[in-house]
């Protein structure tokens, strides 16, 4: 399984309140929420994002609230994978449970810049930066997490069993 796309880059401690502000949480329609994804730190994100694009950030991505609307609105916006130095634990769990691939990689989080063209191989954890001609070794998932992601989320994987 691979992902390939253009990078949207952010810093440390991107919290779930900026990923999807609570003022929009009076709906559970993820396509509607995707239109407001990241708007408090990147007003043009929803306009600029294209299907398959990749989000890259630094440490503690997704800290704060447990709102699943955060990874779900990122996924609904078309993002194919989030790379960060580390993820807040509830976000990590939620992302896997809904089938949004996420990878921890210090080097990629440092080196990759906004607009770079990046390819990710989920089976090996290798991240290739086509723009810079570099590659980085990300953490690959344990097998049971790959199953969940391949089934497009926890509930589907429970059904598949």
């Amino acid at each position, binding site marked *: 399984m691979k992902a390939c796309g253009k990078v949207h880059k952010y810093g440390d*401690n991107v*919290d779930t*309140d*900026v990923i999807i*502000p*609570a*003022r929009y*949480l*009076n*709906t*559970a329609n993820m396509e509607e929420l995707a239109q407001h994804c990241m708007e*408090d*730190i990147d007003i043009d994100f929803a306009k600029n994002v294209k299907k398959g694009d990749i989000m890259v950030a630094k*440490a*503690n991505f997704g*800290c*704060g*609230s*447990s*709102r*699943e*609307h955060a*990874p*779900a609105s990122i996924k609904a916006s078309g993002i194919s994978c989030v790379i960060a130095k*580390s993820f*807040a*634990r*509830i976000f990590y*769990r*939620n992302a896997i*449970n*809904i089938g949004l691939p996420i990878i921890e990689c210090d080097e990629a989080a440092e080196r990759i810049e906004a607009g770079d063209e990046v390819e990710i191989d989920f089976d090996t954890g290798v991240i290739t930066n086509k723009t810079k001609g570099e590659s980085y070794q990300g953490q690959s998932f*344990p097998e*049971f997490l790959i199953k969940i992601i391949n089934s497009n*989320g*926890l*509930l*589907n994987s*429970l*059904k598949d069993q």
Partner: protein
Amino acid sequence: MGMTMTQKILAAHAGLDEVKAGQLIMADLDLVLGNDVTTPVAINEFNKAGFTDIFNKDKITMVMDHFTPNKDIKAAQQCKQCREFASKYDISHYYDVGDVGIEHALLPEKGLVVPGDAVIGADSHTCTYGALGAFSTGVGSTDMCAGMAAGKTWFKVPSAIKFNIVGKLPKYSAAKDVILHIIGMIGVDGALYRSMEFSGEGLKNLTMEDRLCMANMAIEAGAKNGIFAVDEVTKEYLKGRTDREYKVFEADADAEYDEEYTIDLSEIKPTVAFPHLPENARTFDDIPEIAIDQVVIGSCTNGRIEDLRAAAEILKDKKVADNVRCIVIPATQHIYMTAMKEGLLEIFINAGCAVSTPTCGPCLGGHMGILAAGEKAVATTNRNFVGRMGHTESEVYLASPYVAAASAVAGKIAQPSDVM
């Protein structure tokens, strides 16, 4: 090798004699919680997955606290969806306007969590119940859905950081100052994926409400859970609230901790977390004059009766400063009633505060006190992220009820000694 409190509770719920940090386990759950924002997503997933029943109607609770009383039509639709689901499956602990309170104040008050329980909640501050010696952690809606259907979920067993509590808090220093101090010390990801375990001789000087406040903010240090050793204070609190038998789990003497800290309560000073992270903790020797527009006293962190008593002690026979809006939100109906009987509401209203029915409201920028561009608020809430209480150019300063009340009187960020 010995186990921590959390590891022991998880082992017992997984039917194992022993677990180790990093181990993946499947654990039985004693309680599954959701609110009016996270439950609709869980219900949608429940229906999509084709589940036809819940695991136990007495072990699921739904609390309509975030956008209630319904702030708009969409919020009303979400509550309606929860209400209909709760009715269809005859969920025992469904709380709606009139008997609802802020979930993490309400559940302990109702005796729904006891020591040794394993609890998940689709709300990040579910870690609050660690105050009672339970393993309790925030999850998302899909986990809530799976928990409602199966009564179990997967966990990665966490390692732990130990906080040895000694001493006693000085007058006007509060549990909120302790936890802000700790988050300032270890950072917003200082306990990422790990437990924060609180024990030590100083615990006897922390009331259950103090502990609930501290465990509540474990998530603000990135922790999976915060947990307090069970003692006489815990047992006394549970009396009359529950007749469930419970098991007390103690950490083994040779339990391994990643880090250990000693926190001397007698050294804790009034503390304020500056925008836009809870780790930006400062004491008053390092706080310039900052004029404020709003004060919020309430939330799952500091909306309990002892918090209201602390605020009332400062506000008695004083007035909220001109140009400051002070909003007081008792966290549950019982707290509201107690505050009324004790004359606290009268003190607040005489001082010029607005007193609201229980709601999470302004804490997450939902309703009941949203900030405009450039406005600053001192709040007893738990997060001060960009845009958390309203406009992205507004600012939230986190503090104790003492500091919040003193700031309301002073019209700027102030400590009790400035106005008393």
